Each structure stands twice: as C-alpha cells, then as structure tokens.
C-alpha cells in the first residue's frame, strides 16, 4: 500500500454549489433575466401601438439582460447597475403620467 507518495486522487468535477453556496450568483443572474423579460414584455406590447417607444424599451431590455451577465467582482459597480434600472422605471412612469393626464385633451398622443 505505502509505496512512496501516492498519486493525488483525480480532481472531482467542480461542484457549483460548493464554490458558490446557495448559488447566489446564479440566482442574481436569473433575477436580472426576469427583470429583462419584464421590460421585453412591455416593449413588445407598446411596439404594437407605438414602435418609436417600444423599440427603445426592447433595447433597454437587452441591456438589462447583458448587465445581468457581466462579471461582478466588487460591489462597487453595482450602484451604477441599480441606478440605471431606477432611472429607466422612473422615466417610464413620467411618460405614463404625461400620457394619462394629456390623454383626454389630445387624442393623438394616445398609445
């Protein structure tokens, strides 16, 4: 049995659960994907009525998707990602508000 140093056992296949307990990275990526799908759904819906508004939302959805796939080494750049989503939704809310309030007097502005 003990004939010199034994060869090291073959390296086990890297278990994702071991390197990333709870699969936090995976779940975060999926959360970004879900958010991207939300924007995509809205973009497609608006595309039916107003392509000029729908296309930018679809583009933003693609951006959100790719942001979720970016490597995150430090928490630093997270503030930019998060601020981006907040600004997008707030802008959308402002546009929606203007459409809602102006909708009655100017039928042309409707979706």
């Amino acid at each position, binding site marked *: 049995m003990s004939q010199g140093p034994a060869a090291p056992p073959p390296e086990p296949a890297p278990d994702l659960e071991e390197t990333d307990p709870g699969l936090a990275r995976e779940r975060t990526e999926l959360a970004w994907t879900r*958010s991207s799908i*939300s924007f995509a759904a809205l973009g497609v819906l608006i595309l039916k009525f107003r392509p000029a508004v729908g296309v930018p939302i679809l583009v933003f959805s693609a951006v959100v998707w790719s942001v979720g796939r970016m490597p995150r080494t430090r928490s630093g750049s997270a503030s*930019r990602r998060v601020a981006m989503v907040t600004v997008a939704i707030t802008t959308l*809310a402002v546009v*929606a508000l203007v459409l*809602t309030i102006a909708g009655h007097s100017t039928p042309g502005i409707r979706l």
Partner: protein
Amino acid sequence: MRDTCQRRTCDSPVTWKQKTTMSDNALQGDSEGTEPDARFTMANERTFLAWSRTSLALVVAGLGIAQLLPPFPNVPWGRSIIATPLILLGAAVSVLSYLEWRNNQRALRHGTPLRRTQLPRVLAITISVIAVLAGAVDLYSRVTRH
C-alpha cells in the same frame, strides 16, 4: 462568461479599475467600510430587482388602465383617477427601492444592522386605497348609468 478579464479590463486593468472604484464611491457616497460578503451584496441586488419589477408592473397597470380600458360610462375621469395613483406609486416604489438598496449596502459595508423597510407598508396601504377608489368609481358609474 464569469471571467473577470473581459474586453476593456484586459487592456489597462489598473487604471480602469481605479477609475471605476473612484466614481462608484462618489456615486455611493460611501468609501469607508469593508467589502461585504459577495452573497450579501447579491441578495441586496436581487431584492432591489424584485421591487423594481413590482414598480414596473404598477406603472404598466396604470398605463394599461389609462390607455386600453374602455371609459366608464358617465365617469369620464374614471380611468385617470385610478391610473394616476398607480403610476405615482410605481415611481415611488422604484425610487424607494433604490434608496433602500443604498442604505442596505451601506449597512453591510459598516456591519451595522439593516434598517426596517417601509416599502411593504407603503405598497399595501396605497394599493388598498386605489382598490377602494376603483370600486367606488365602478359603482358610481353603474348607479348613474340609468
């Protein structure tokens, strides 16, 4: 895909890293503290995203009510009065969730307890009020039809 070395980073890793770190700290208004466990950071980010989707749904619901719903008979302002608070709530939830993400991130960096969140209360109360409002508008519209 999860490699840290990607496109820009590989050309000038040091300067690029320094630049982003500086501007991020300025943006976050918080350069002290220590880098928390990455899992905590990601959990905070997921919570923010979940709230963001909620706020997006609120805005879209408001937009849909204002633009796609047929008008209430006899209540010309009916759709607007339901849609406007929904959209405002969506904007508020979006901004509040950002502030909360920032507070949580700061607390994680300093090892202080997380503050209690006010978002569920805000959401629950406002949605209840809007639901009552919507019910009232619908009822009024039905009563005055004849």
